[in-house]
C-alpha cells in the first residue's frame, strides 16, 4: 500500500509536469504543424531569469511569476521575430528556424552567463516533506500536482468558454476556415505561443526546483519528454498530450522503481520499448480525436 501510494504520487507529480510540457508543445503544433525545437529554451530562459533575480530582495513567488512571464515573452518574441517572417515559406523553413532559435538561445546563455550550472533560488517549502501513507513525500511534488491540475482546469475553461479559446481549437482543426470567419492568423498564433511559453515557464519553476540549478542545455530533456508525450498521446489533440504526459511519467516511474539493479541502467531502453509498443498498436497515439 505504501509503495503504491509512493508510486502514485511520484507518477502524478512527474506526469503533471510532463503533461504541461506536452501541452505547451502541442498547442503550437496543432495550429502551425511546427514542432518548435526552441521550446526547451523557454524553460532555460525562465531558469536564468530566476538566477539573475536571486540577488534581489523580491519574495520568491514574485521571482517565479516574473520568470514564467519571461518565458512567455521569449516565446512571443521568437514567433514575432523568427517564425512569422518564414511562416508563408514552408514548414521546413520554420523547422530549421526553430533549430536556429534553439541554438542561438543556448549559445547566448553559454556566452553571457556560463557553461556551468547556476543556482536558482527555491522557496523553503520546496525542501519540506510530509508523511503520506507512511512515505516521506516532498511537498514540492504535491504542489506540482495541485498547480498543474489547477492550470489544466483553467486552460480547459479558457478553451471552452472564451471566444479566443474556441478560435484556438478551431484553428488547430481548420486554420484557413478559421481565418475566413474573420479570426486573424496572427492573433491565434501569437496566443498559442504565449500560452506555450507560459506553460514552459511554469513547468520550469518545478523542473528546476528538483535540482535547484540551471544550465544552458537544461531544455533538451523537457523538449524530448514533451515530444514523446505528444507522440504517445496523439499529435493532433490537446487532451492526448495530457494523457501522453501522464502515461510516459508512470511508465518512467514504474521502471525506475521496479527494475532490478542490474537492469536499471537499461531503463530508457525499456521505456522506449513500451513507447514503441503503444505506437505499434495505436499509431496515431492514444487519443485520436482532436479536442
Amino acid at each position, binding site marked *: 500500500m505504501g509503495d503504491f501510494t509512493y508510486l502514485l504520487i511520484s507518477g502524478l507529480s512527474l506526469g503533471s509536469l510532463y503533461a504541461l510540457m506536452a501541452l505547451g508543445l502541442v498547442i503550437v503544433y496543432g495550429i502551425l504543424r511546427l514542432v518548435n525545437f526552441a521550446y526547451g529554451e523557454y524553460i532555460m530562459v525562465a531558469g536564468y531569469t530566476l538566477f539573475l533575480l536571486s540577488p534581489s530582495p523580491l519574495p520568491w513567488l514574485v521571482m517565479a511569476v516574473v520568470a514564467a512571464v519571461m518565458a512567455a515573452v521569449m516565446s512571443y518574441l521568437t514567433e514575432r521575430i523568427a517564425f512569422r517572417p518564414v511562416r508563408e515559406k514552408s514548414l521546413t523553413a520554420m523547422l530549421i528556424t526553430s533549430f536556429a532559435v534553439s541554438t542561438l538561445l543556448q549559445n547566448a546563455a553559454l556566452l553571457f552567463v556560463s557553461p556551468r550550472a547556476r543556482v536558482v533560488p527555491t522557496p523553503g517549502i520546496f525542501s519540506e516533506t510530509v508523511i503520506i501513507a507512511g512515505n516521506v513525500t516532498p511537498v514540492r511534488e504535491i504542489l506540482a500536482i495541485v498547480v498543474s491540475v489547477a492550470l489544466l482546469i483553467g486552460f480547459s475553461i479558457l478553451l471552452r468558454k472564451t471566444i479566443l479559446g474556441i478560435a484556438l481549437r*478551431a484553428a488547430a482543426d481548420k486554420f*484557413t*476556415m478559421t481565418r*475566413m*470567419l474573420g479570426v486573424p492568423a496572427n492573433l491565434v498564433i501569437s496566443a498559442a505561443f504565449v500560452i506555450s511559453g507560459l506553460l514552459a515557464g511554469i513547468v520550469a519553476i518545478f523542473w528546476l526546483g528538483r535540482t535547484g540549478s540551471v544550465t544552458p542545455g537544461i531544455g533538451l530533456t523537457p523538449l524530448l519528454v514533451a515530444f514523446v508525450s505528444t507522440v504517445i498521446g496523439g499529435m493532433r489533440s490537446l487532451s492526448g498530450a495530457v494523457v501522453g504526459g501522464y502515461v510516459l511519467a508512470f511508465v518512467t516511474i514504474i521502471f525506475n522503481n521496479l527494475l532490478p539493479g542490474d537492469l536499471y541502467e537499461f531503463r530508457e531502453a525499456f521505456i522506449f520499448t513500451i513507447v514503441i509498443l503503444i505506437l505499434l498498436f495505436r499509431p496515431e497515439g492514444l487519443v485520436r480525436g482532436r479536442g
Partner: protein
Amino acid sequence: MLRLDDLHAQYGAIVALRGVSLEVNEGELVALVGVNGAGKTTLLSTVAGVMRPRRGDIVFEGEPIAGLTPETVVRKGIALVPEDREIFSDLTVEENLRLGAYIRRGRGEYGADIDRMCELFPILRERFRQDAGTLSGGEQQQLAIARALMSHPRLLMLDEPSLGLAPKIVDQVFALIEQLHRDGMTILLVEQNVTRSLAIADRAYLLNMGTVQASGTPADLRQDVDMESIYLGGGD
C-alpha cells in the same frame, strides 16, 4: 457589387484562372457553372483571399480587395461556404455559429442572430450543444451556411452546396438558396447541378479551362452552349 477583371491565378506551375472577368450586381443570384477543374473553386478562393491572384483586379463595392487576407475580406462583407463545408467537427454547433459571428462581437445581436438561424434551420436548435462532427451531411451543409450568415455578409458565395447530399436534401438546399435570394441576399453560386442552378439564377457564367466561355441569362446560356458537354463532364 463584385467585379472581377482579367483575374489570373495559379497553383505553382498549374494555371487555374486565365483572365476571368465577371460581375455580380446587388441582389442578384449569379450561377457559375463548368466541368471539373474549370477553376470555379479557385475563383471563389481567390475572391475570399485564400489565394492571391497572379494578376487582375477584384473590386467589391467600389473597393479593390485583391490580395487581402481572408480575415480582412470577410470584414468587407463577403462570406464563403467552401466546397467541403469545413465544419469544425470537434466544436459544438453553437461554437461553430459563435465563430461565424466573430467579426460581430460586441454588437449585442448575437442572441437575435442565433434565433434567426434556428428559425431558418430548425435542426440546428435540436443539435445546438452537439459536436458538429456528429451531424449528417445535409445538417453540416445547413450549419456551414448558417455559420456564414452569422457574419451578416452582403455577398454570399456557395461552393457546390448540394454536393454529396441525398436528393431530398438537395431540394431543401435549393429551396433555401431561393429563399435567401428572395430576402435580398446577393449570391454567387457554384454548382455541378447545372439544370437546377440555372433554374433559380438571374444570370450565369460558364467557366472552362480558367476562362469565361459564355455568360448571360440562364436562357441564353442554355441556347448558346452545348450543355451536354457540361453534363457529361460534370458527373454527379
